[in-house]
Structure formats: structure tokens, C-alpha cells
């Protein structure tokens, strides 16, 4: 029997999948609001986008609470240690069936590249989309806060830019799911929580 570790806890899995669904809904509806295509009609789609956005706000309140009370926030502390090994693995090793340079365990569920990617999500994409989205939601009360000089267009450009970055992140993210020791290993882990560890090929340093 291969070794199994509990990589993702129940709340984490719930958070991940509900957030994934919301983000996909937000992307589909958001790009319609942006005028890229017409699917639901503007009035409906703005309504859907707002409901999904507020639901995501609620989900994040729980997620932030969970991360701090469980100490899981530390998983996002960045490290440059062995980033080069990760890049080398994705560029070369993966094609040669080389062993994964990083071994997941419950205390380190993100590899160094993931940590950097999520740091970018948290520090750049997140604030861009959240802050601009928040201003967007309260557009009609700007004058009450002395923000009359702010232009909706700037906010919209920032919000759309954030959305495009999330789209690009999503494309790469979905692909990387298949790069476990079997193409479905990561997906299984995110569904069941358990990930099989490839014992025989485990990285010697790990």
C-alpha cells in the first residue's frame, strides 16, 4: 500500500471548491458585464455577479478566520528555497519521469513555486480585484466619502485587469492539477483530502 497523507482538511476542501465555483461564475458573468460577450443580458448578469461577489466575501470571512485560528496561514509564507529545482522539474524533469523535487506533507502542502504563485495572488491579484470590486459595489456613495474625483473607468480597468490575471492563473492552475504522480492524484486529494505519496521515487532530500 502506498503511503497516504491527509493533505487538505475538510474546511479547506469546502473552501477550495466553493471558491472555485464562485470564481468561475464571477469570470463568466464579469466578462459579460465588461461587454466581451452577451449571454444572460446585462441586468441579469450584474445581479448574478453581485450575488456571487457577496457570497465570496462571506466565504473569505470564514476562510480568513480559519487560516488564523488553525495557523494554516503559515503555509503561504514564501520561500525561495528549491524554487530553481521546481522550475527545472516542470521544464525538464517532468518529461523524464524524474521524481518530484518536493514532498507534500500536512505541514507543507504547497511547493515553493506554489507558495510564490499564491503570494502573487494574495499580494497583487487579490487586492486589485477586492479593492476595485469594493469601490465598484459602492459607486453611488462615492460622493458621500469625498471620492467624486475618482473615475469609474479607472476602477473598471483595475477590476478587469485583476479578472484577466485570475483567468490566466486558473488556466495554469487547472493544468498543474494533472502533474501529480498520476494525472488525477492532486484532484483526488482535493476531493477526498488524501494524497498518495510516491514512496519509491520520493526525493532523497525530502
Amino acid at each position: 500500500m502506498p503511503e497516504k497523507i491527509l493533505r487538505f482538511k475538510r474546511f479547506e476542501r469546502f473552501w477550495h471548491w466553493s471558491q472555485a465555483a464562485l470564481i468561475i461564475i464571477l469570470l463568466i458573468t464579469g466578462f459579460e458585464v465588461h461587454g466581451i460577450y452577451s449571454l444572460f443580458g446585462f441586468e441579469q448578469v450584474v445581479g448574478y455577479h453581485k450575488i456571487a461577489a457577496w457570497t465570496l466575501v462571506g466565504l473569505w470571512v470564514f476562510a480568513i478566520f480559519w487560516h488564523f485560528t488553525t495557523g494554516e496561514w503559515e503555509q503561504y509564507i514564501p520561500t525561495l528555497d528549491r524554487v530553481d529545482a521546481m522550475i527545472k522539474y516542470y521544464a525538464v524533469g517532468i518529461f523524464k519521469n524524474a521524481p518530484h523535487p518536493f514532498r507534500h506533507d500536512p505541514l507543507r502542502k504547497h511547493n515553493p513555486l506554489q507558495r510564490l504563485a499564491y503570494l502573487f495572488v494574495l499580494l497583487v491579484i487579490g487586492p486589485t480585484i477586492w479593492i476595485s470590486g469594493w469601490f465598484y459595489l459602492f459607486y453611488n456613495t462615492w460622493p458621500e466619502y469625498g471620492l467624486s474625483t475618482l473615475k469609474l473607468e479607472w476602477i473598471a480597468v483595475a477590476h478587469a485587469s485583476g479578472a484577466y490575471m485570475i483567468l490566466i492563473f486558473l488556466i495554469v492552475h487547472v493544468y498543474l492539477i494533472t502533474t501529480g504522480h498520476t494525472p488525477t492524484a492532486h484532484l483526488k486529494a482535493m476531493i477526498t483530502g488524501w494524497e498518495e505519496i510516491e514512496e519509491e521515487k520520493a526525493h532523497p532530500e525530502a
Partner: protein
Amino acid sequence: MSTADHSSFEILRQQFKSGMELTKACLSCHNLAAKQVRASSHWNWEMPNGRTGQMVGKRNVLNNTMMAISSNGPYCARCHISNDWKEEGFDYTAEDQVDCLACHDTTGTYASNKWHQLRVKCSACHVDWDKSKAREVVRKPNLSKLALQVGRPTVQSCGGCHFYADGGDGIKQGDLDSSLATASRHLDVHMAKDGLDYNCVTCHKTEHHQMRGSQYAPEGKDEHGMDVVEGSRATCESCHGLLPHPEGVNPKLNDHVDRIACQTCHIPALARGGRPTKTYWDWSTAGRVDDAGKDIVEKDEQGRVIYSSKRGGAQWAENLTPEYVWFNGQIDFTTLDDSIDPNGVVQLNSLAGSSDDPKARIWPVKVLRGKQPIDMEKATLVSASLFGKKDDGFWKTFDWPASIGAAMQAAGREFSGKVGFVETEMRIPVNHMIAPAEEALACESCHSRNGRMKDVEGLYMPGIGSVPILDKLFLTVALLALMGVLLHGVIRVISNRKKG
């Protein structure tokens, strides 16, 4: 409802030989009425432009339909509310000249019959007319009968002139034509015969014979709100208030009223009553006659006159989508004295306002485009004598220099004799033909790429996109990312298969 039945008044039960006799009978009770009318724009055809003081009104402005009233006086003056108007020496102070019936006839027959009493060729006004109906229309008004049924103005009383502005039914405005006299709910939710059945003065409330809601003094943004005591100021807000959309509908709608005029969404199209409105009037081609020297009239397949020797080329539209502009209520007019660019497109009026102007909202406008004569040497607009019985009327002679010369002389202006033509545009804010709520514009009418607001300057709104290069850049990167991971995957599959 009136509290008086005029048909039972002794003084009205007599044989009236002239309008002036009838007016005297009216004034014997309504002894201030004539004084009030003489202070009105309906009488003076002139008023100062609110903020600039420029004298406007029919007497002063120019347009690209019949151009100006100078030297066309007797014909244009059919619509003047006087009994016996004369081009020279008309006494504007004579009380018995006020034609009470012009507005207070409730049969809807008087205005038209009165116009047609001036004995001129039908073709002086009608490009195309039905001779068989002439006898029916050209009937001398029976003043003694009409005197018994006076009352508050009806839609037809106002429409008798206003529907036919500038040469025919619906030609100029697009939102005012004779279909409003029998409006369905679809055409106008307020004036619908099977609905609220408002008439013009329900909104254009008058006090002391002064009308509210003049085209020369519009209100770009009414911030006073509902007025329960005084009633309508001929603005939507005076009845519907400042938060006009009720609870239960999308609350976002009320967030729009600061920047979007009510008319913008609630008048989705013009000329919806089956009468086309003119969108292009080309005077430069007028005067072409056939080999026999007779007038030409050309029609399109719908029977609309698209060319006539008298009026030149024309384009028409029904269900016309208005154009949209920022507008704060101030209109400036180009006059006979203003210099123009003979090679440019001359704006006959300009609607003030911009996105930075808090008093401005986005308004729908009917744009009438055209080509009209100018004085090439002076680079100014001109008027032309069209109807003239003598040899200076364009419709008799097709001689531009002579007819312009006569009109400019009448207007007290110099004319070099050199005639050119220039493209002109006139913008008319739209106010009538309010559709029922369910036919108002939907969000995506404007919130979409190529939506209705695409030509409005200084405007961003969700749905229209912004910084197109950014969209292209990000979409390219997303596509590259997609192709990158697919390629990576394909190489993985191939390299694993080799080993496997």
C-alpha cells in the same frame, strides 16, 4: 372639468362675422385674457434665452427646414394666434386681435380651416396633396357654432399647429405628430385614449396664459422634485419626483437619474405613430424641373416624398432611434449674424453640457441634418423667401439669389449675391411619445459595446469596455498560457509513452 357651460352664455349665442367680434365677446368676461396672451411667447414669437439673453423664438432663429420666417411672414403667420395678422403694420397691442379660438376651439377643426383661408396655390405648401379632399378641408370656419363649444385646449387645439411644424405632419420634431391625437398606450402612456388620456396642458400647465415647458427654455435637470400643490412644471420630476422608480423594480434605476434624463430610456424611438419624420433636408438640389419645365415629385416605395422641386431632397424615418448628448438645458442658436465655416458642418443650435457639468444629463435628441444656402462671400447663413407671390419667391422662380436677396432685405441684412450651400445640423431635445415602462430601454441598450451611448463624449459605463489594448493584451497572454500548458501536456504524454 370646467365649471361653466359656454354654450348657454347669451353673449356667445350670436352670429359672429369676424374673429375680432368673437374675441370681444370673450373679453367681455375674461377681461384680463388678452393682456396675458400678449405677454406670452405664443403671441410674441420671441423670448430672451435664459442665461445668455440672446433673443430667440421663431422671429429670430434659423433652422434647416424653412430656414426663417423673414419675408415668409404671411404664410408662417397662419400659426400666429391672431385674428388678422399683417406683415406690415400689425398692431401687437390690439386686444381684439387675440384669436381665442386658436387655442380654445375644442372641435379640432378650427386651426386647419383657418390656415386654409389664405387663398394661395395648394402647391405653395403641399408638395403632394389629394385634390378630392381639398373641399372638405378648406371650409370657412363657422365662428357662431365654434363660439358655443370653447373650452380648455385639447390635444388637437395645440396639435393643429405644433404637429405640423415646418411644413407637414411630424416633419420637424419626430416626437410630435398627429398620431398623438389618437394615441395608443404604446405610443404615449400619458396621452393614450384608452389610458390616462392626458392632453398637452396637463403637463404644459398654464398660468395667466403663460405656458410651461418651452423648447427655448428647457430644463436639463429638474432638481425640485414633486410638486403636489402647484402641479406640473412640464418636467417628469414635477409629478414623478426625484426617485421615480418604485420599490420592487431594480433599485439601480434610481441611481441613474442624476446623469440620465428620464426621456433617454422612456422614449425608446421617435415617430412611433405611423407618421415618418424628416431626417435630412437637402435644399441644394431644389429647383430641378422636368423637360416640360414642370415641378418634379419623387417618392420612395412607401410613398414618402424623397425629392420635390420646391423642397429639394429628403430622407425620412419611422421608429427612429434618437441620438444622445450631454445637455444642461441651455441652447445657443446660430443666427444670421454669426460667421460660419462654409466647408464645415454648421451647428444651427448647440446644446450645452458635458460629463463634467453636474447640471447636465444625457438627453435624447432628434437630429435634423441638411444642406441649406449661405452667403458665400460673407460666410453667414441666410434666409430665403419661399412663398412670395411676386417674382422673388423661390417656389415660383427657383431663383436662389433673388429669393435670398428678398428675405435678407426683409430681415435688414446685407447679402452679397453669392450663394453656396453648407451642411447643417439641428438638435431637438425629445420629450414626447413616452412609452409604457415595459417598453423602456433595457440595461444593455446602453451597457454594451456599440450600445446607444457609443458616441456620447466623456462617458464610461460598465459594458462598453475601456482601454481596448489592455483587453487584447490580457486575452493574448491567456491564450498563450492555454497553448503553453497544452503543449507542455502533449510533450509529457509523448515522452512518457516513449518510456512506457
